[in-house]
Structures are given as structure tokens and as C-alpha cells.
């Protein structure tokens, strides 16, 4: 049912969830199609992930598989493995939902776009007004600008805050501490 969505680069199925990787340039087109043709009228969530440093070190964990873990199969636990590489540094995820009675099982879909540092995502505020604060939060926390957002200012941090706290290169405790003997 998602073949007709414009700009789809890749469709993934995992954990019973569908992810549509969309070309950022055609995001608005894809979102309008999903909203108007496929009835995804509700934007549940808009969030971002910073993959800086992803897969640089092998992770000692088990693989897991679609049905869960098989403890008796050799090699499912405690062997180092490098996670699959990601195409770009940032992913922005749009979790869409159909709010309508009798929409069946395929109620949710995740639209994903990939961006490098400094690249802007198109704002979907005209498609779903609820994206307003979500996009401001992503800008504030991750430093991903949204093109076409009418009020892209910080939302959780102070207006004069430096840096974007949820980036992986932003240290925990990165807040400068001021001591009383400082002038």
C-alpha cells in the first residue's frame, strides 16, 4: 500500500513496524500523500536521532532476531558485533497514525529522513500543525534546522544557550558551572 508514496527510497519492516525512508526533498509531497490519500491524519511524534559514533566500536551483545532470542542457538549472546552502518549522521522520524474507527491493523507508519550536519529538513507544520513544537524541540536539542518553520526558536533551553544537548558530541555535564568566587 505504500508503493504509491512519492519519494520513498526504502521500505523496512521490523518488530511489526513499517519504516518508509523518504528523500528529504520530497518529504512534504510524501506527507501530503500519506495524510490525504492514506488517511494518516495524526502526527504522533516527530523526533530525531544522532548517529555520530554509531558502529565505531563493536558492541558486545546478542543478535536477537525477529521472533526474539534463542538462548540455545550458538552465537546469540556476548559476541562483539558492529551495528549496521547508517547513511548519514541524523535521522528524523515522523510517527504517523490513523485516527479513524475501523482503520485495521496498519495504523502506524514511520517516515524517516536522513540528514547530515547543517542540512535542513522541510517543515511539515503546514501538513500537521502539531509539528510546531516538535520541530522546535528537534532544533533545540539536535540542531537540525527546519525550512519553512515560521517560529524556529529554542523551546526547552534558554534562548542564548550554546550547543544542542542531545547531540552525541555534547558532553553530559556540558553546562558551564559558575563559582561564587568568579568575578
Amino acid at each position, binding site marked *: 500500500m505504500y508503493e504509491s508514496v512519492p519519494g520513498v527510497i526504502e521500505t523496512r519492516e521490523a518488530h511489526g513496524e513499517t519504516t518508509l525512508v523518504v528523500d528529504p526533498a520530497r518529504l512534504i509531497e510524501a506527507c501530503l500523500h500519506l495524510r490525504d490519500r492514506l488517511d494518516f491524519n495524526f502526527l504522533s511524534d516527530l523526533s530525531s536521532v544522532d548517529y555520530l559514533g554509531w558502529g565505531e566500536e563493536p558492541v558486545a551483545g546478542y*543478535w536477537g532476531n525477529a521472533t526474539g532470542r534463542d538462548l540455545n542457538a550458538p552465537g546469540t549472546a556476548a559476541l562483539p558485533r558492529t551495528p549496521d552502518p547508517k547513511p548519514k549522521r541524523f535521522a528524523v522520524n515522523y510517527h504517523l497514525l490513523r485516527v479513524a474507527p475501523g482503520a485495521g491493523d496498519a*495504523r502506524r507508519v514511520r517516515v524517516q529522513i536522513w540528514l547530515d550536519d547543517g542540512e535542513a529538513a522541510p517543515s511539515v507544520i503546514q501538513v500537521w500543525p502539531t509539528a510546531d513544537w516538535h520541530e522546535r524541540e528537534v532544533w533545540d536539542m539536535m540542531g537540525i534546522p527546519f525550512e519553512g518553520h515560521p517560529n524556529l526558536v529554542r523551546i*526547552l533551553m534558554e534562548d542564548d544557550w550554546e550547543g544542542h544537548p542531545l547531540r552525541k558530541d555534547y558532553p553530559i555535564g556540558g553546562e558551564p558551572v559558575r563559582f561564587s568566587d568568579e568575578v
Partner: protein
Amino acid sequence: MAISAPRIYEGTRIPSPVPTIIEVPEELRRSADILEINFGPNHPSMHGVLRLVLQLDGETVVGLKAIIGYLHTGFEKSMEQKTWWKAIPYAPRMDYVSFQANELAFVMAIEKLLGIDVPPKAIWMRTLLAELNRVHSHLVWLGTSALELGAISPFWYAFRERDRVLDLFELVAGARMHTRYFQVGGLAEDIPRGFFPQCREFCEVMPKAVDEYEAMLTENPIWQARTKGVGLLSAADAIALGQSGPVARGSGIDWDLRKAEPYLAYPDVDFDVPVRENGDVYDRYKVHMDEMRESVRIVEQTLEGMPPGPWIADDRKVVLPPREELHTSMESLIHHFKIVTEGFTVPEGEVYVAVESPRGEFGCYLCSDGGPRPWRVRFRAPSFVALQATATCMGQALVADMVAVVGSLDTVMGEVDR
């Protein structure tokens, strides 16, 4: 005093171009005497540390801008630094009123990534506690938002029953709030003796208590005058603004994740979803009241239907071994040590899990690189989204009505700012 039922507006009221800001029209700015005032972040009638910058024309609010972030604590960043199971106590501390719903979403998301099966007893107990938590949250909402409108008695009545709920939580988990009772794979402990009789007693008391609150407010002319026709939100606007939970159901949207995407034991219990059509503060209040009654119904059924058996999955790579085995089994001791020090690992992948929290869709997006710590934790906070509807609900309201509107959206600032 007869107050006719309000009529929902036609078209949309979402301000443009910014959906969350009401701008003062230019001609009004020139002709009228506009007073800009700062409301909050600390104000007795403000719902937590929310700050609103208002432009008033007389007593009418003609401009509004919400400023949040005063309670930002960086939960999502902190959780990335913790092992999966040590991150669990962070989740309930965001929305400190509906803590168990948050804990539940986080734990269920980890379980989805792990592909671990939860025993039925844990599923039913989680359902029970989630519903008790809904009652708790609605009671706090009722008490505080009635108080903000000047009705002080419901606050004392509501907090009387709230204390009974907290007693139940204390009995189960040892803590009154932020129970951290949901563990990956099930529950942290078995249900204690004495819980069932005390919970049944609560189920008998609670419906009568809801009648008492309703006797104080529902037909009260002052309450009706303050809430009917105030803070209108149409169904189409509610969906466009991502509203869920009681706010959406007060606007006539028959939508509840417990019915639409059944999780836990909700498919096996019988309950109704209260929906009201008018989309005003009064209808949101009525939805909250009816939901409390339905929650008690669910709690009663889960008490009756509670299956026997283990309360946590038997998966030694994820779940702590039983305490008594530590003294006799070397294997168990090693597992215990490994889980406590290193934590368990979660397969690579990303999931989004949503539960119907007392405030609406509470979502948890997790991303794992296969290691013992989450790569990214993200919470879809219903309060954060509900607060975005303030500007739309306000319309041309009076400044006193603004308090009713903000209160009726049922936001918890800890969750808004995270």
C-alpha cells in the same frame, strides 16, 4: 441559571502562521490599549511552571504565547548514559502524576526490542496498576484544576481518595510514587498478601466518591458557568493539533489506544470509552469523571481475573535470578552480578510503543545499537502536545477563562519539559 449547550465552531481556529501563538491583530494594536502581562512561571493559579505572555484588551486575551522549559531536566540525555534497567526509574519521574504509564511504555518498548514474553500475571497486574494510576492522575487533575477555578472542597475530597490509591501503590511496591514496579519481563516482585482485599475495598469506595465529586460540581451553576462553552476545540482541530486522551474524547473523537490498539489485558476486560461532543472544558471534565468510573470497572475485573503463576519471565540473560538462588547457585550469582554491573543488552533496532496514559498517547521511541545502554530514548509526551492547543482553545477568552482552559488540558509540566 440555565446555560444552553455550547455549539462547536465551524472551520478551524488554529492560529496562523504559528499554530501555538495568538498574534494581536495590527488594527487592534493601533486602536485599543493593549496591556502585555507575564503570567507565571510561578503563579498560584498556573498549572505548574508554565509561563504565558498575554496581551490583554481589557479583560479579553487577544495575544498569547506559551514559554516552557523551566522544568527541563534532560531525562532523554541522562537515560542514554544508563544501562537499560537502570534507566527505568527515570521514566516515571517525568510525568510525576501518571508515573506508571510512563514506566509501562518504556518497559514495553524494551520488551518489544528484546522479543521477550511477559507472563499473564504480570500483564494483568500491569493493567490493574495502570488503571489505578489513571484514577490517581484524574484525581490530582480534578483537585487542582477545580482549585484553580476557586472550588476548594473537591481538592480535599479528591486527595482523600488519592491517598487510598497511594496506599495501594505503597503496599505493592514500597513507594507511594515512582514505584519502579514494572521490570523488563514482568514485575519486580510478586503481588503482596493483603493487596486484593484492600484493593476491593477501594473499588467499593471509589464509585461513591466519584458521585460525591459530581454532586459538588456537575450541577453547580458556578462550575457550569465557568466551564460550559469555554475553551472550545473542534474534532478536526484536535486531530490536526495531535490531541489525544481526554482532550480528544471531550471533542467528540472516539479514540482510545486501549481499544484501538489493544495491549496488556485490555482486550479481555469490558469497559466503555466515554466520549463527549461539545469540546469545552465542561466536557473534558465529564470525560475525566466517567473515565474514573470505567477504570474502577477494569480494576474490579482484573482483580477477579488475575491469573496465577510467575510474575516475571524466566530469562536469565535479562531478568535477575530469584534471590534465594544466589546462596546456592554459582550460575545465578554470576547472572545477578552481570546484570547488575554490565546490564543486559538489547538487540539493535528501533521501536515506537504507545500506551494510553491518563493524558493521552504516551509514546516511547527507542533506538538500540545492540549494547547495554540505549542509543536514543525519546518520549512522546501527551502534555507537551496538549499545551500546543492552548492558543486554539482560547479563541477570544477572558483572562479568567484562560485558567480554566489551561487546567482542562491536563498538562504536567514535568512531562512537557522532560
